[in-house]
């Protein structure tokens, strides 16, 4: 875990940079050594900020303005009640997950079974068709006649007619 080392209070951290942006930086160049921002980045930012926001009216009262903005947001907090709700929600979701996991497990197993059975059926059917096609090709190759259907007598309609035509 790489927690960030911060200098000063959360309140100061929260608004300092925004105020520096808006009202310009009139502080001394010294910035907390615990700030993780690298020196080049920081120097670049201060230079740009001063260039963009050179309003001299605010010289000297940056800190007061920064505190004002921080104060304006002090009532936006992550409260203990919110922590409790997070705790309750995570507990609830865990229990739901625990209850439903056997159901999902069963459904998944059933789905796998269905897939396996279907693949088996299709595979078997494919082989049968292939074999009969080969037989047909072999019989045609022999006497140039279409194959007779031995069980045609027990079949209705077209197959019987076909067999009779072949015999004729």
């Amino acid at each position, binding site marked *: 875990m*790489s927690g960030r080392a911060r200098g000063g209070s*959360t309140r100061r951290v929260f608004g300092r940079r925004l*105020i520096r942006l808006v009202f310009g930086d009139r502080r001394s160049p010294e910035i907390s050594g615990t*700030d993780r921002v*690298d020196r080049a980045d920081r120097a670049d930012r201060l230079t*740009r900020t001063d260039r963009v926001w050179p309003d001299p009216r605010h010289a000297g009262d940056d800190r007061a303005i920064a505190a004002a903005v921080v104060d304006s947001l002090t*009532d936006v907090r992550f409260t203990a009640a*919110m922590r409790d709700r*997070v705790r309750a929600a995570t507990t609830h979701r865990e229990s739901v997950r625990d209850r439903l996991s056997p159901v999902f497990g069963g459904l998944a197993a059933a789905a796998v079974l269905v897939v396996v059975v279907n693949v088996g059926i299709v595979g078997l059917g494919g082989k049968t068709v292939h074999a009969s096609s080969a037989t047909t090709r072999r019989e045609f190759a022999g006497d140039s006649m279409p194959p007779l259907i031995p069980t045609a007598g027990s079949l209705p309609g077209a197959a019987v007619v076909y067999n009779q035509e072949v015999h004729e």
Partner: protein
Amino acid sequence: MMESQTNDERWDTVERWMRRHGDSVVRTIYLLTYDFALSEELAQEVFIRAYEKLHLFRGNASEATWLYRIAVNLTRNRFRRRNREVAVEDGFFDRLPAWDRAASPEDALAEADRRRAVLAAVAELPPALREVVTMYYLNELSLDETAHTLRLPRGTVKSRLHRARERMRTALEGAV
């Protein structure tokens, strides 16, 4: 990635993060939404997600950056789903705390005006610029951390910061 933890261990971690980063997370969302109720709801959701996805957390990024990223994603999703723009709540500025360190009532009024001006200027920014301003200035992330959190190239972050500064300067001229 975090090694597999028991539920209690995960909760201990998330609870520690809530104490350490809860305020900044809810304020981040607040500045993206300008909606107290929504920011509270989404901040809670951030930590619920963190609890559920803790095994995906890599130690090479700071936990704060990871939480901010979750917060930004949740906020983006919420606004995409609602298809709405951020609007400052009615009466928001009236609910700002009083400036109790002012030397006089006149100073208090002046400070209140400044606060309103700053927050209104941020609220006027389009979401893409407001995200960058929030991460870079409020949360004090570096350019690279901001880029990482928002999944943007570093150059895009810089250009958006520049545009945000220009807009805020224009908005605040004469107001403060």
